[in-house]
């Protein structure tokens, strides 16, 4: 991207002054290398979001931003319902409430290494992953309604989880305001046999080792020490969320005209928050959030079953479960005033700083764990929300490495088989139903996640706590 198109505010803040139909500025947080490598489409899409009615403060993009559909991927935008603010199905994305959870095993790397291969095989058998996989759970209409209204709490009631998890799941495991009857029959049908499935693409379950500690104090509070083994799961609301996204995208694209909203890009499809379609979408989207929370709780339960088999009595304690594709009603300080805003995060992780009332007491003094997925080979990071993040981007941070190469380019460059062998030689076991899928997700196809999290820290969005290196990766 041409850096001359920005006003550089500091080392990691790049501002696009409002022009044309922009109502607010657009701000991208990144270091110079990351922003130089960013696609011009990120600029265009961040500018387009700044044109939407009722947008507050600025349209933001995180250091791992890339060309999305409508919103840039890693985009953040907040809207005020009392100023004609909108809710956008495109601003949430198809995989509603896609997110990450990390569980602490209480084990050290030497405990796990002798069993690494057996654990990998067992997880691969127990966790349904990839296209054509079906879960062991089929929901009848009554259980579907209960799941959509109950989230992770529902899963726990069914025996697929642990009530101790709830305080460490966003919304305490249950998204209020979910309206299962706003979810279409088609969306429910798509979910009927998908509970407890991982999906495909960039979704995974990993067994990871803590490889580096950046902040010993916060790491201590999080319960992380060098060579600890953790389990991390990345997935979302599966077919249900995809179908809700699809249906409301169309309805909003058509309805925008009726609300007098000029869409710079049809994919930005949105409707006033205070409108019939806006309210119906919020009800359905919140039900999809519950679906994602339930799904990750169930997958966590499956992982626990496997670890309990190899390490009887072992308890996988949840560190945190946080989503990165949502629209949430939150209170934020804007120019010194507390305002209730609908914050869209599309591939951006919520990152509440210390003292936030939604955090469990055990974490409140340090801030919310921000779970950042990398690629199969390079590892992941655990960050912590910073107080400065609220002013910077409504308490939001990055999501992962972000792709550097398209799936096509990756496929041309790498063979899935060779990646699996090369990573095995480095002590990382990959299990996936699809070698082509592995090639498309090749470590080299992703940006340097280390640079992304360093930029997020420098920008004051979140601070680095620990780096995780993969030991086992179950890839959909």
């Amino acid at each position, binding site marked *: 991207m041409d850096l001359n198109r920005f006003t550089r505010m500091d080392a990691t803040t790049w501002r696009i002054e409002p022009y044309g139909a922009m109502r607010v500025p657009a701000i991208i947080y990144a270091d110079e290398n990351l922003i130089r490598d960013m696609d011009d489409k990120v600029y265009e899409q961040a500018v387009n979001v700044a044109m939407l009615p009722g947008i507050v403060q600025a349209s933001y993009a995180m250091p791992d931003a890339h060309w999305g*559909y409508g919103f840039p991927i890693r985009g953040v935008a907040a809207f005020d319902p009392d100023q004609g603010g909108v809710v956008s199905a495109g601003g949430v994305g*198809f995989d509603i409430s896609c997110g990450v959870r990390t569980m602490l095993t209480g084990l050290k790397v030497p405990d796990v290494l002798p069993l690494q291969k057996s654990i990998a095989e067992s997880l691969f058998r127990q966790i349904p992953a990839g296209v054509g996989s079906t879960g062991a759970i089929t929901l009848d209409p009554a259980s579907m309604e209960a799941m959509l209204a109950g989230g992770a709490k529902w899963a726990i009631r069914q025996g697929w989880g642990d009530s101790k998890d709830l305080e460490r799941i966003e919304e305490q495991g249950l998204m209020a305001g979910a309206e299962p009857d706003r979810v279409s029959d088609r969306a429910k049908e798509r979910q009927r046999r998908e509970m407890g499935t991982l999906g495909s693409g960039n979704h995974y379950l990993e067994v990871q080792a803590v490889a580096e500690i950046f902040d010993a104090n916060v790491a201590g509070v999080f319960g992380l020490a060098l060579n600890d083994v953790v389990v991390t799961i990345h997935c979302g609301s599966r077919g249900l969320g995809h179908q809700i996204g699809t249906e409301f995208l169309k309805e909003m*694209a058509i309805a925008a005209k009726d609300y007098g909203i000029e869409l710079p890009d*049809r994919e930005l499809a949105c409707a006033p928050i205070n409108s019939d379609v806006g309210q119906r979408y919020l009800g359905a989207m919140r039900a999809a959030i519950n679906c994602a929370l339930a799904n990750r709780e169930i997958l966590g339960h499956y992982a626990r079953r496997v670890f309990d088999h190899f390490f009887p009595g072992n308890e996988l304690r949840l560190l945190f479960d946080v989503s990165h594709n949502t629209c949430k009603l939150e209170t934020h300080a804007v120019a010194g005033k507390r305002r209730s805003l609908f914050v869209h995060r599309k591939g951006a992780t919520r990152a509440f700083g210390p003292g936030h009332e939604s955090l469990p007491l055990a974490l409140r003094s340090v801030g919310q764990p921000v779970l950042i997925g990398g690629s199969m080979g390079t590892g992941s990071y655990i960050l912590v929300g910073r107080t400065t993040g609220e002013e910077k981007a409504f308490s939001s941070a990055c999501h992962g490495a972000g792709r550097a190469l398209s799936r096509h380019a990756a496929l041309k460059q790498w063979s899935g088989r060779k990646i699996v062998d090369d990573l095995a030689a480095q002590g990382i076991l990959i299990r996936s139903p699809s070698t082509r899928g592995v090639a498309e997700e090749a470590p080299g196809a992703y940006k340097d996640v280390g640079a992304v999290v360093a930029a997020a820290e420098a920008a004051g969005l979140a601070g680095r706590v620990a780096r995780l290196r993969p030991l086992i990766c179950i890839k959909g």
Partner: protein
Amino acid sequence: MASMSDSNAVVASKGRWEHFPHAADVGVRGFGATPAEAFEHAAEALTAVVTHARVEPRHPVEVNCASPDLELLFVEWLNAIIYEMAVRNMLFGRFVVQIDDTRLKGQLWGEPVDVERHAPACEPKGATYTALKVAADSNGTWSAACIVDV
């Protein structure tokens, strides 16, 4: 038809369809003498996002959709296929489309996913309005394209 191809396309099939790159997702584009034919070939491109293996046209499925314009109808068509793939756990290899103004009737033929044989790479979540275009070129060849979220 070659003039219409995206120079960056890396997967293409006999000039009927191609994939074009997108940062995180993938673009599908079908070509044809009519919009309906372009829609059929774009559907083949959608299947190729999931598998490069042959899909046997064993079982027929019918879909119907409607949208106010041809471009929205194209997205609706792809989403109808994605839905049938998901709920039936099937892949489709043959498509016939009839378009009557704002309505579309589609026949799909396919078979249940065979993980071993199809080695499915990823699952399409939905067709998007990004890079959405249905148009004829100066030679009268139609193309239908958009980004699919995977």
